[in-house]
């Protein structure tokens, strides 16, 4: 099927009321974000859920917003973001030469290197743990990650990734939005914008932050930028209050709230009647129904009480070191299972994987926390048949330098590093691309962040050149004016 351009009404103020359009407009926006709540049951009787049958829905707008450009390989995404910058040369990119030349300065042949902390002249640091070929495929993975290593045949390691900044926030933004500047829409927002949500009871794009602290660059990392607000990532957390203001204040009982909502409905309807049943006002009345239903849906989703002991164990839930990340990985599975389009998990507090002075200790800690949960997630998705159309992404904002810092640490390296993908139409058990002999720069089959984004959109059935949003005089894209789909890794 030839790709079809996605047409959206992007200029603010172009859509206006008070005909039925308002209601539709609301539903569409709602479909993208938190406002998506509970539309299914609400709309069942009105045929609005299925745009093809909808009596009064604008076909073009609705279907374009929800239909991919071509047949997707992946329908949803789980993005495991290792904040701080995990070391590719210690985890997924074996460098025997680095062991050989450890202690020596970077050979002159490598030329000038831009680094964050002036480490260019520091001696090289050998990989901290041995690598071994794993699985049938023989993909080499370090002993830092024994559990993920057992899933080697599922994953495709992109070893030639590269970005544009040696700084954290710029790189966090770039990995999420394509731009090193803040304020652009994130990948999850673009995906929600392009595909909408499968579960209208839940937001399309959910973020599960690390409870230890914020990422460098803050919430704009999952922001909607210039896309409408409903496309931003909604942060959720385990427990009774998974979403901000989901629950009434503790002193208000559920029955009490029901009574208040009844009165609210009565008075709002009275008002609506006097306003000629204005669509905008009607939409707002409905938003309260949706909010109310969401109060039931969201806590159910984060309630892992009915998962089997075996499943909990698989994710390392109940074990001290893996419990926290394990729970979030399990929630990620529950969410994609329920039809959430894009789930992003952050591992690492404000410093996270940023191992400037002791890679072994830092990565030891973070690998122990995440290795079993991530492997558990892959295994669980596979056995439930979800991995075929769920794309799992693992990576940080950059990798780390082959040179040492403060003896046993490593500085940031955006010039060459690894990101891996699994499931969702990606060939497992392979590596693609190469860094140089010591892992300093990507040199072969390089994958710039724009290329990575283009590939992710492609797997989701979208042409990155056609997924555009007209903003301030320009058809903006996630991939700016670049991006190549890495077809070589498609299954």
């Amino acid at each position, binding site marked *: 099927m030839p790709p079809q351009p996605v047409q959206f009404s992007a200029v*603010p103020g172009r859509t206006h009321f008070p005909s039925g359009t308002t209601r539709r407009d609301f539903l569409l926006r709602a479909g993208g974000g938190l406002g*998506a709540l509970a539309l299914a049951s609400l709309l069942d009787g009105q045929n609005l859920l299925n745009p093809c049958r909808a009596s009064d829905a604008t076909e073009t707008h609705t279907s374009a917003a929800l239909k991919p450009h071509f047949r997707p390989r992946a329908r949803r995404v789980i993005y495991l973001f290792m904040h701080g910058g995990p070391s590719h040369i210690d985890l997924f990119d074996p460098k025997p030469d680095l062991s050989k030349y450890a202690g020596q300065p970077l050979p002159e042949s490598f030329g000038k290197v831009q680094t964050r902390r002036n480490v260019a002249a520091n001696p090289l640091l050998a990989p901290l743990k041995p690598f071994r070929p794993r699985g049938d495929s023989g993909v080499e993975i370090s002993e830092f990650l024994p559990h993920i290593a057992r899933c080697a045949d599922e994953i495709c390691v992109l070893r030639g990734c590269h970005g544009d900044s*040696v*700084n954290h*926030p710029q790189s966090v933004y770039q990995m999420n939005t394509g731009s090193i500047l803040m304020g652009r829409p994130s990948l999850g927002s673009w995906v929600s914008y392009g595909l909408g949500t499968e579960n209208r009871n839940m937001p399309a794009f959910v973020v599960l932050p690390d409870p230890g602290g914020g990422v460098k660059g803050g919430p704009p990392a999952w922001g909607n930028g210039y896309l409408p607000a409903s496309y931003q990532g909604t942060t959720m957390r385990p427990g009774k209050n998974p979403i901000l203001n989901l629950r009434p204040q503790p002193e208000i009982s559920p029955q009490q709230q029901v009574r208040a909502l009844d009165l*609210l409905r009565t008075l709002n309807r009275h*008002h609506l009647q006097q306003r000629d049943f204005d669509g*905008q006002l009607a939409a707002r009345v409905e*938003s309260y129904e949706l909010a109310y239903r969401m109060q039931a849906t969201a806590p159910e989703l984060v309630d892992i009480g009915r998962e089997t002991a075996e499943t909990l164990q698989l994710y390392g839930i109940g074990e001290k070191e893996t419990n926290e990340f394990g729970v979030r990985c399990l929630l990620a599975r529950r969410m994609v299972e329920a039809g959430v389009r894009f789930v992003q998990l952050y591992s690492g507090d404000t410093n996270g994987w940023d191992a400037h002075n002791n890679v072994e200790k830092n990565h030891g800690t973070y690998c122990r926390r995440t290795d079993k949960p991530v492997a558990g997630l892959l295994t669980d998705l596979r056995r439930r048949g979800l991995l075929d159309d769920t794309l799992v992404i693992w990576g940080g904002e950059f990798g780390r330098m082959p040179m040492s810092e403060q003896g046993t640490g490593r500085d940031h390296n955006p010039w060459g590093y690894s990101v891996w993908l699994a499931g969702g139409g990606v060939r497992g058990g392979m590596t693609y691309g190469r860094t140089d002999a010591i892992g300093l720069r990507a040199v072969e089959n390089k994958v710039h962040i724009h290329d990575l984004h283009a590939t992710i959109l492609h797997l989701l059935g979208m042409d990155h050149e056609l997924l555009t949003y007209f903003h301030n005089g*320009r058809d903006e894209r996630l991939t700016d004016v670049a991006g190549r789909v890495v077809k070589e890794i498609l299954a």
Partner: protein
Amino acid sequence: MQLPAREGLQRTVALAMGLLLSLFVQSVPAADDPQETVIEEAPITSGDRDHWAFQPLGRPDVPAVDDNGWATNPIDHFILASLKSAGLSPMPPADRRTLIRRVTFDLTGLPPTPKEIDQFLSDSADDAYEQLVNRLLASPAYGERWAQHWLDLARFAETDGFEHDKVRPNAWRYRDWVIDALNRDLPYDQFVRLQIAGDEIAPDDPDAWIATGFLLCGPDMPDINSQIERRDTFLNDMTGTVGAIFLGLQVGCAKCHAHKYDPISQHDFYRLRAFFDPLELFKDRPLSSMTEPADAQDAQKSTAKDLPQGRVARDAPGEPPKSFLHIRGDFQRPGPEVVPAFLRVVNADGQTVEPHPNRVNSSGRRTALADWLTRPDHPLATRVIVNRIWQHHFAHGLVRTPSDFGIMGEPPTHAELLDWLASEFPKMGWSLKRLHRLMVTSSTYRQASHPDESSREIWRRSIAEDPENQLLSRMNRRRLSGEAIRDAMLAASGELNRTQGGPGVRPPLPEELLTTLLKNQWPVTPDADEHRRRSIYLFVRRNLRYPIFEVFDRPDTNQSCPRRDESTIAPQALTLLNSKFSLTEAKYLASRVAKKAGSSPSEQVTACYRRVLGRLPNDVELAASMQFLEADAEKLRQESRNAATRSDGRQPPDNSDRFKTDALTDFCLVMFNLNEFVYVD
């Protein structure tokens, strides 16, 4: 999409050309081609200047229309003329109660008090409405409201953004300057001149330097390795923002290549940037005297320490640096040298940039730019500002893309009215207050936004023939901004702290939001009274929007925002229904109402309606509300008894007063969630 045919075609052609151009750009010069140093600049053709926005400002005659006494001022003649040619009639005027609520929110961002409403309703003077408008414009709340519109454009925040999102301790002075400038009705040309070149124009007036904080509002990445890149990014952003705000053109699109659709070359972009290239950036300064040479200022550090500091613009000492076009926007690839010059397409008479030799310790370049941008005959700058003001009063601009007057923008719905206003505004002494007065006293503004029995037929035709309300055949209903909702809740509960000015205030944030920040990024302001200040005074952190503002479409502060979305999403309902703030204000309102109205439920309901909606309840509403109060109190009593019985087997004392109070609180919470509260007719 409903576009007039000609403009639709023009847009299609532009799109097609843009597509061709992009193919060309993608295929011809390789991205890393070191030979790519000759950048052609296409000359401006007369065809380029045919676009409506580049045409000289006209002075259309006010159309003569048979108005049957409807028109109040010239605006109405233009509006009525186009309504008539479409066979439509305006809606009848809104009733007085609707009108005072509309104009008070519009001009001050606050609801009218019950007393103000009573006064206006009982004022039989012919000019009662005009007097009301005058009073509102004279209120300090006017500046507090309208400053936010400007700060949205300026992308004002009190932090840098990026990793550390460092606090700019003096940024609030600029916010206060804007509020004050609006309140004292600083003529708009001065308003612009001072923000671009206050340090040059009034070197002995610290207040004027603070105005230049405008140029320094954007995000900044102080930690980036390359300080050259930091400066380059900041200057590009400044240039694009100035172009968008004052010229209404997306000049920033021409940073890497010629603008795809508009006649703006890359040279044009870097010539505009050259006005700012001499700036010395990233340094707060003592507010002593700009006439001191910079090094003398540094030498005075010990004394300067005691002076207040300001985030102000200033040229670096010495000769201005040379300016270059950057090939593909890459600062590491300087192309041809450029000198400051005005945008060619709107500089038909080729005005050159005159140096200002009398400027002390400064290049004088920004003064030249400010002078040009405030020419009374400037075809863009004048149209752009009157359109922005119009938009805030009427929900949409006469040009519905307020920061894009280029080919891809929308054409004006009333081109002649736009030109009439744009040419009239300088003659009004650039007085924004006069411009507001003209707009809000028009009959157009006073139209009803929904029908009553007598106007149903007019309404039906208005909806059918003018569905987008492009002709203004009725008034637009508006949703309040998040700031206005919060302020109105505080006003209704009687808790609004009207203190003006000063550093940004940080009320407590929910724990779950704090964890998305770095540590200590939100130290709560110790004095709890401060937490109830007007929204404009809340601290603006770039990396975290205040939650109630965020759900109600406050833009992030990274790019200039000319018009906010008005979305309807469920998190808004969750916020107003469940947030701690809502419940707290509901309690305050309940206790105020109980104090004033006593224990009579009907008096209580009436008092709530007056405070929250500015009107009395009708019979249906009164009955439903009273029934609620009674039933809710009774249920609360039962529930409390059941709970107590379950836990310790004993009956609690039947404290019916407490349940009545709680029921009244529930009722107040409902009031804050009403459509009528959040929307203005």
